[in-house]
């Protein structure tokens, strides 16, 4: 076969070192008489070296935590199953409570009910993620721009992670959560003492325009929640007073409505 005509494929196989000895020699002899083709093949090799030189360093980088997490879905699945269980329970309670409300107070505003349901979900998310030591967030504050862009894309609305340094909290990072009508963004903040507050943000049906701050206590978790244009917000904490949480909620609101 070594006397078969040299093809374009042969030249690439030669540049890639994939030819057997006989064929390699045939290609070399062919190239020796053709300086331009020879230069072209040399460029292909330089290109390969360039690619290896440029990207092989990635192999030595530590694998980010979120990628290692991607291969531990069993654990996550259990966690999500637990959260989902709470959701189902929450919906069941909501249905019963809603039905009772309907019996006694037929005029209850649907927006308020939706808000209360959001506060409940936000509280569950808070108790689920805020005690996490190693994996409190999916994407850390060191990649804030990416985090915000990602969550904005998934929610289909431009989000911002408010800056809360003035009230003593800095961004830890955030994650994407499943909500009952679509993806939910979850931002976590922490003060110097390690106390955490979480901001739960979801898109709202167009009918729910705007509400004032509302307050709710879900077990040990205090939640301020409100709806502003297309987004619903719920700020949760289990560790700070209602007054302090209100200050943070106010700061969030001011930041998002300058």
């Amino acid at each position, binding site marked *: 076969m070594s006397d078969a005509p040299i093809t374009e494929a042969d030249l690439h196989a030669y540049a890639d070192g994939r030819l057997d000895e006989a064929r390699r020699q045939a290609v070399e002899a062919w190239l020796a008489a053709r300086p331009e083709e020879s230069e072209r093949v040399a460029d292909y090799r330089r290109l390969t070296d*360039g*690619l290896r030189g440029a990207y*092989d360093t990635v192999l030595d980088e530590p694998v980010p935590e979120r*990628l290692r997490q*991607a291969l531990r*879905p069993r654990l996550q699945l259990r966690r999500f199953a637990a959260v989902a269980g709470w959701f189902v329970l929450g919906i069941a309670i909501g249905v019963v409570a809603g039905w009772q409300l309907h019996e006694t107070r037929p005029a209850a505003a649907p927006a308020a009910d939706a808000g209360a349901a959001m506060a409940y979900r936000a509280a569950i998310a808070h108790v689920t993620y805020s005690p996490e030591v190693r994996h409190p967030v999916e994407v850390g504050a060191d990649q804030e721009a990416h985090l915000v862009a990602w969550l904005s894309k998934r929610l289909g609305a431009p989000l911002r992670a408010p800056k809360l340094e003035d009230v003593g909290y800095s961004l830890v990072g955030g994650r994407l959560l499943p909500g009952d009508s679509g993806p939910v963004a979850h931002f976590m903040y922490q003060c110097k003492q390690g106390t955490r507050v979480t901001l739960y943000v979801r898109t709202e049906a167009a009918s729910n325009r705007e509400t004032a701050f509302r307050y709710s206590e879900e077990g040990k978790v205090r939640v301020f929640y409100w709806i502003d244009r297309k987004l619903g917000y719920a700020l949760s904490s289990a560790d700070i007073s209602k007054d302090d949480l209100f200050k943070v909620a106010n700061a969030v609101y001011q930041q998002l409505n300058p």
Partner: protein
Amino acid sequence: MNEAQRLVELTPRLRRYARALVGDRATADDLVQDTLERAWAKLHLYRRGTDLRAWLFTVMHNVHVNRVRAARPTDTLEDEMPELAQRAPQGDGLLVRDLDRAIARLPAEQSAVLLLVTLEEMSYEEVARTLGIPIGTVMSRLSRAREKLRAMMLGQAAAAKLKLVK
């Protein structure tokens, strides 16, 4: 269990390929994350005894193609792609940034072939299997990808020479 361990071992290679394919680190890791999650969920479809690496890169290729397709309506990359004018004043190695730009200008099916051959050092048959295309197509895409990158490199070298002469 064995497959899971292999997925962990292959993760750095997925990251290398993804970085070369999409350029920036965060987007590349998003691609790897989607790939790993999908591979993990679909692991029951992997046939034991076949090449897990090829299977994994097949998953990544499909995820990438879907992501590119989904992103296209808002993707202005091609319009805003700057000319390849910046080059290191000395040194003959291509800058990573130049390579990122050059690869971004290749059609996705060509860059996939090029990167599997050069970075992953897959045989042409493995590339054909991984991408689900005939081997003749592998060779023609490899050839086109290399010719385009080479033209860009030569264009840059010519531009650099002009500057020096001037």
